[in-house]
């Protein structure tokens, strides 16, 4: 190119011809144009490369699932021996719902994996490692991503959508322990092996309806681990509606109905002579839960201050047969009960990082009829745990969250679960989250 131009220049100079000078300018122009074109292409390429380089693929750690760990530790000071914990007036649940051990203890550590499996499914596994060195599967389920019309299906083990708090992981609770109602009606927290179908309505007001069919592996079903039978042993139907009002309030309310048929659901009690006996219940158990949650933050900006009000009302009807001393004399009679309970709690973040909360729990032992006692075969003293009593508890807490990933909480409670004594409880707890932990539900 340049040589050509130089030659043209030389020729033009030699001959002194004006048309040669024009040809030279045109040649130069062409050269310049070509250079500009190439430069432009290089700039565009560089720009594209920069965009490429600065755009990390929008996925969770490239192809690895998002992994997170929850650690929590507690110091407990309990005025009553936790080994004598019981909630009087109510059938004991299959697991331990007590306040834990005294002194320092490691709470449950959680290990969670989650990722989209493919374009159709998302998978989640949440394992809990107990301080006693055993590993349990808290949740392990797949969930559809590609069903249309607002439908999603979940299958595997998951926290049942019965009530509100039951679906929330313990580390995201606003208090150290579960409400009394969750303890007596759901054995702390019900996670079911089964399948859930949920539909979200195409309305501007949030509305969902869902059904769950499960194995009945936990209280209120029974026996522990589930029945040895085909088909469905536990069913749950639920619906929620929710929306916004004003310039900072969001609300949601839900109704759920859990129906199970416990078979040989056992519990230990002491008979009138003080001897420990194992009783068992078979029949039907139906539980209704009405829940409500309201969250307020000025202009929906919860960074500085916010308030959360949460409450649930539980009502359970059980009817069937109660067997006294199932492993011994095995006397059986009809048994029905209608019991209820509720809790109401409020948590207020008054400055960034600091929250205070108060919770009130109350259970109503309601009415029970026990044929074994009514017929005179046994006395009420043979079923001390079922003696009518309405447990209550008051709880106050303050917590400090220096970042979204850590929280330190101090909680005081006056627990009147036992009919004869008040347990004054103090918990000092830390909860931290490491790694890519998913967002929390409303």
């Amino acid at each position, binding site marked *: 190119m340049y040589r050509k131009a130089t030659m043209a220049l030389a020729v033009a100079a030699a001959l002194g011809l004006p048309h040669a000078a024009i040809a030279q300018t045109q040649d130069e122009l062409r050269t310049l144009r070509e250079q500009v074109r190439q430069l432009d292409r290089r700039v565009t390429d560089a*720009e594209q490369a*920069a*965009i490429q380089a*600065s*755009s*990390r693929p*929008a*996925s969770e750690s490239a192809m690895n699932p998002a992994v997170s760990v929850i650690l929590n530790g507690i110091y407990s000071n309990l005025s009553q021996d936790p080994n004598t914990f019981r909630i009087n007036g109510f059938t004991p649940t299959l697991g331990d719902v007590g306040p834990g051990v005294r002194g320092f203890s490691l709470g449950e550590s959680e290990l969670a994996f989650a990722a*989209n499996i493919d*374009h159709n499914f998302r998978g989640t596994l949440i394992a809990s490692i107990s301080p006693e060195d055993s590993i349990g599967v808290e949740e392990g389920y797949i969930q559809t*991503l*590609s*069903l*249309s*019309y*607002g439908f*999603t299906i979940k299958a595997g083990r998951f926290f049942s959508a019965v009530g509100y708090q039951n679906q929330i992981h313990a580390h995201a609770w606003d208090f150290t322990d579960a409400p009394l109602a969750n303890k007596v009606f759901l054995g702390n927290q019900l996670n079911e092996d089964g399948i859930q179908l*949920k*539909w*979200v*309505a*195409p*309305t*501007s*007001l*949030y*509305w969902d*309806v869902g059904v769950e069919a499960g194995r009945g592996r936990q209280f209120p079903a029974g026996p522990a681990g589930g029945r040895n039978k085909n088909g469905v042993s536990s069913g749950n*139907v639920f*619906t*929620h*509606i*929710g*929306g*916004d009002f004003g310039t900072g309030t*969001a*609300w*949601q309310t839900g*109704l759920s*109905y859990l129906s199970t048929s416990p078979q040989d659901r056992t519990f230990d009690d002491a008979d009138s002579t003080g001897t420990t006996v194992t009783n068992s219940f078979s029949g039907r158990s139906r539980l209704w839960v009405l829940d409500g949650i309201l*969250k307020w*933050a000025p*202009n*929906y*900006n*919860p*960074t*500085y201050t916010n308030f959360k009000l949460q409450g649930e009302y539980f009502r359970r009807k059980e009817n069937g047969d109660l067997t006294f001393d199932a492993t011994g004399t095995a006397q059986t009679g009809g048994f029905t009960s209608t019991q209820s309970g509720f809790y109401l709690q409020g948590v207020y973040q008054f400055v*960034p*990082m600091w929250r205070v909360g108060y919770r009130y729990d109350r259970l109503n032992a309601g009415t029970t009829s026990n044929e074994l006692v009514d017929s005179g075969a046994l006395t009420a003293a043979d079923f001390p745990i079922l003696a009518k009593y309405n447990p209550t508890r008051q709880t106050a807490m303050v917590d400090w969250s*220096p*970042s*979204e*990933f850590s929280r330190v909480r101090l909680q005081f409670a006056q627990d009147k679960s036992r009919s004869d004594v008040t347990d004054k409880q103090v918990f000092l707890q830390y909860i931290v989250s*490491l790694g890519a932990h*998913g*967002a*929390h*539900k*409303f």
Partner: protein
Amino acid sequence: MKTILRIVVVLSTAFAMLPATAALNVFACEPEWGALAQELGGDKVSVYLATTALQDPHRIEARPSLIARIRSTDLLICSGSELEIGWIPLLLTQSGNPRVQLGAPGYFEASQYVVKLEIPKVIDRALGDLHPGGNPHVHTDPRNIARIAQALEDRMAQIDPANADGYRSRAKSFLGRWQVALARWEQQAAPLKGVPIVVYHKDFSYFINWAGMREAGSLEPKPGLPPTPAHLAELVDRMKIQPAKVVVYSPYNSPQAAEFLSSRTKIPAVMMPFTVGGTDKAKDLFGLFDDTIGRLLAVVK
């Protein structure tokens, strides 16, 4: 079971269905993307703003009303780069709407189409709330708005081919007006070159880069952590030696920390609109930059 069915039937008639218009339902995670979609879509789109300028887009509750909206969304527009990591993934899995899941045409991340700044070299939570993909607040550079508008135009035409011509012609008109405005802003912002500025959060980095300003500090000790007295005291000392010209914060930030620094150092504190709707003048994207530059010039001159 029968009672439940009856309740379901009653409820379903009680709730008004969403207006079944032919318009493309757009869910904008932040107001700036809602404004852009409106510019490109006109009456062919129905835009829902998930947040306002008074909300911190990092901290949004996955409210039921947002799930209900996503359920009927055709196009979701977010900043991306993990800005919405605390709420959007949850809304998506709960919504039962495959059209807007990650990777679907209805899922649009604006930050994917521009060169991102501040991609961390070291990622560790001890350094604060970092975005591994780079700073997500890309909309504060007016050149980025033009780039994203082009990408969004293509996406809207892809999702709603019936109205593609309309989107193309509206985009052309918008980009034409934007180039004129951009030339004006470049001229107006010339005095801002090299001016030291203290920010609240690193949400003005793209603007600072565009205007050639110099970030002299931030009120947050680490990204995402609220200002602490110790950090502010240190900042006051630093400003006494090397004063900045202006302290800025966003409408969703509390003005306290900026005012504290301002009162101790006599450096003016200014609330920026940050996004569309952040101030009265920031009614649309043009107003956003007019007001942003105007507010800075008012104190820098």
